[in-house]
């Protein structure tokens, strides 16, 4: 590839089992969406890590600004009553 240009970056999300959420596992380069799924499969599911893959172009993700972290997250710190820690969770519920 003498005229190699960088393929766009995709973020990869894997669902490990039915009932669980897709979790971010990393990123790969790919020329298009189909190739991104194949690369994600080849790179991140070699050891039976998942049953479902999402890929999202990294450039499509809108991120919060780290400089605004205080303004965004600090106000929640002293509001302990928002945590549902006062309930007993039944043993049957596995993946809450």
């Amino acid at each position, binding site marked *: *590839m003498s005229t190699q240009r960088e*393929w766009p970056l995709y973020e990869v999300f894997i669902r490990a089992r039915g009932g669980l959420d897709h979790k971010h596992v990393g990123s*790969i*380069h*790919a*020329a298009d969406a*189909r*190739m991104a799924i*194949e*690369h994600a*499969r*080849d*790179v991140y599911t*070699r050891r039976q890590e998942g049953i479902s893959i999402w890929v999202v172009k990294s450039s499509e993700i809108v991120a919060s600004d780290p400089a605004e972290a205080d303004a965004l997250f600090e106000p929640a710190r002293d509001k302990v009553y928002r945590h549902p820690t006062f309930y007993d969770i039944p043993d049957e519920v596995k993946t809450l």
Partner: protein
Amino acid sequence: MSAVLPDRHFLYVLRLADSNLVLAQRLGELIGHAPALEEDLGIANVALDLLGQARLLLAHAGVLEGRGRDEDMLAFLRAEHEFLNATLTEQPNGDFGDTIARQFLYDSWQIELYGQLAQSADPTLAAIAAKALKETRYHLRYSAGWLVRLGDGTGESHARAHAALERLWPHTVELCDPDDIDAAMFAAGIGADLATVRRGWDRRIDETLAEATLERPATPPWRWYGKRGEHGEYLGRLLAEMQVLQRSHPGASW
């Protein structure tokens, strides 16, 4: 299952094993050398699938032969003329277009073949084919996807993919050209009907080549028959590398 054809049954399974083993070894040469990290892993995954299929088939062939040869003895202690792989699988990796074209031609054949072998009267062969069929579907998705990108890509990628198909085409004839072993195994309900395989193979090839804007090469006046043990110049060096450890240190293990 017929009991009168043990030798042909052994050779039939050995052919399937050898094609997978040789192609796995070829693809293994690319590990660390593929054009991108993601393709490196993709090719390695295909190679490992093929090697896994080869091991199952070699072990089964060893049982059919009944002379106590296990998968390692069959893989590492046979000479070049005893290998019955299709010559397509021993062709060098070349550029990425060569590697992809070879893989696409092989996967398109294997998916049709395994589809039939999954119904084989030989229950072990049927089970191996059913397992391998799932892997082959992914291999074909990978190789066909890439062939379309290369064929329908830049002028250079199109030209290289076209040249690769022209180079490899003479090696595809034997895949669907039945000889006495193929015919006997089909008649016994063990092997595939290569006439049906050929129709499926043709359809898959034509569909993908059309999508890739590539022309189907003309059927060549010459052809290769690796499945009879007739090989070109490349297999010997591949086997030398694959077998050197076992031949230098017989019985070595870790």
